[in-house]
């Protein structure tokens, strides 16, 4: 049986670790609340943007804007992957990256070229390890929900798309459902799909347009794509904090179980020593009585 002192030391280390996991859980909970507030605050903008672009899209094609270019056989694709900079957030990154790996394997058949653009240190480490092509380097941007970051990502993607270098832009991120569940989701960013808007109830109103419909749409598309990327970033950050909160909560509970079982072991070991000592004493005194 292990000696009492060793077990006591282990209990101490587990308790220290538990303190850290508990603190991390509280921090993640606070950050999650902030991230959720940001999601709620951005909703009116995103919704309105979608409505207006959808309305203008109804009879738009490639003539109007290069971002409607939709070849029958897309040759090259870009996947924008949103991961986190930091770990200790359960299956948050691994579930998403597993999905990416499958997609890249399957996509290799349908696309001539399939590149990625990765946000977050965890994702960058993964693509390096798995030898996945990185076609756009986004390593200067932190994994934060920030309009500037969203705008930079959107601009890079739109530039390559407009130049004809890529035919498809997808974005892969964790959609936030609750602190317990985040769903890795693919969304098509480009080309824009006028059909995607039609199932929403858009009532075409009799608007006048300034300067004119085409130019208005042309100017709105970059703003729209940015808002889509921003929404994905927000979801992704909320998911990260949710996943971390859950993971750290589990870790804290596991530490509790471990402490309980170690304490039990320690008490048993101590009792065993006492019993042995007592037996030695009685045996000794019996022997003396002779």
């Amino acid at each position: 049986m292990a000696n009492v002192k060793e077990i006591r030391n282990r209990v101490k280390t587990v308790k220290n670790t538990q303190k850290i996991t508990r603190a991390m859980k509280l921090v993640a909970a606070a950050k999650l609340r902030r991230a959720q507030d940001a999601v709620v605050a951005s909703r009116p903008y995103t919704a309105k943007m979608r409505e207006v672009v959808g309305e203008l899209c109804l009879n738009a094609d490639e003539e109007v804007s290069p971002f409607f270019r939709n070849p029958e056989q897309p040759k090259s694709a870009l996947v924008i992957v949103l991961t986190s900079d930091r770990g200790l957030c359960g299956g948050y990154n691994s579930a998403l990256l597993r999905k990416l790996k499958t997609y890249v394997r399957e996509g290799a058949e349908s696309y001539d070229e399939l590149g990625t653009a990765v946000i977050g240190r965890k994702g960058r480490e993964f693509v390096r390890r798995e030898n996945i092509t990185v076609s756009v380097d986004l390593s200067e941007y932190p994994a934060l929900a920030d309009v500037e970051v969203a705008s930079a990502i959107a601009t890079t993607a739109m530039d390559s798309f407009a130049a004809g270098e890529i035919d498809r832009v997808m974005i892969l991120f964790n959609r936030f459902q609750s602190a317990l569940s985040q769903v890795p989701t693919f969304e098509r960013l480009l080309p824009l799909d006028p059909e995607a808007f039609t199932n929403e109830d858009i009532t075409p109103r009799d608007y006048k347009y300034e300067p004119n419909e085409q130019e208005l749409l042309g100017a709105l598309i970059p703003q729209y794509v940015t808002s889509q990327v921003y929404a994905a970033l927000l979801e992704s950050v909320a998911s990260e904090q949710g996943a971390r909160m859950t993971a750290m909560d589990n870790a804290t509970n596991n530490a509790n179980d471990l402490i309980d079982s170690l304490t039990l072991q320690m008490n048993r070991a101590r009792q065993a020593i006492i019993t042995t000592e007592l037996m030695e004493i009685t045996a000794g005194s019996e022997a003396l009585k002779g």
Partner: protein
Amino acid sequence: MAEAIRLEIVTPVAAAFSDDVSEVVLPGVLGEMDVMPGHVPLMTLLNAGSVRCVTAAGDRLFAISGGFAEIGPDRVTVMVEHCEGTDDVDMEHARIELSELEKRMDVGDFASMEELHEENEKLRRARARIEIVEKATARR
């Protein structure tokens, strides 16, 4: 005819303003425009610049980046990436930024038309920032 316009200024970060106003002045791409209640439905692009609206409690001023506005008879929705009220502007910082931007504009060494447009938009925003604060203080 509608008596008031519901003005909403929305950015990706928050709803910056939402209230009933009797008049809105917007920096449209084809020129500054004054919107009164009962306006025909109109969708317009906006330049970076200043927005002025008349509320029951007096005038309110905002400096916005470029974006667009959806105008109806009884509502105006302004969609922009950035919007600052008079309290958000740090005058000292804004003046320094403006003079830097003006200097760059004077040198006029731009790689492309896009860059020129971007600089121009920044300049407009910087001017609007100072303009709204100056107007607001003059009124007080």
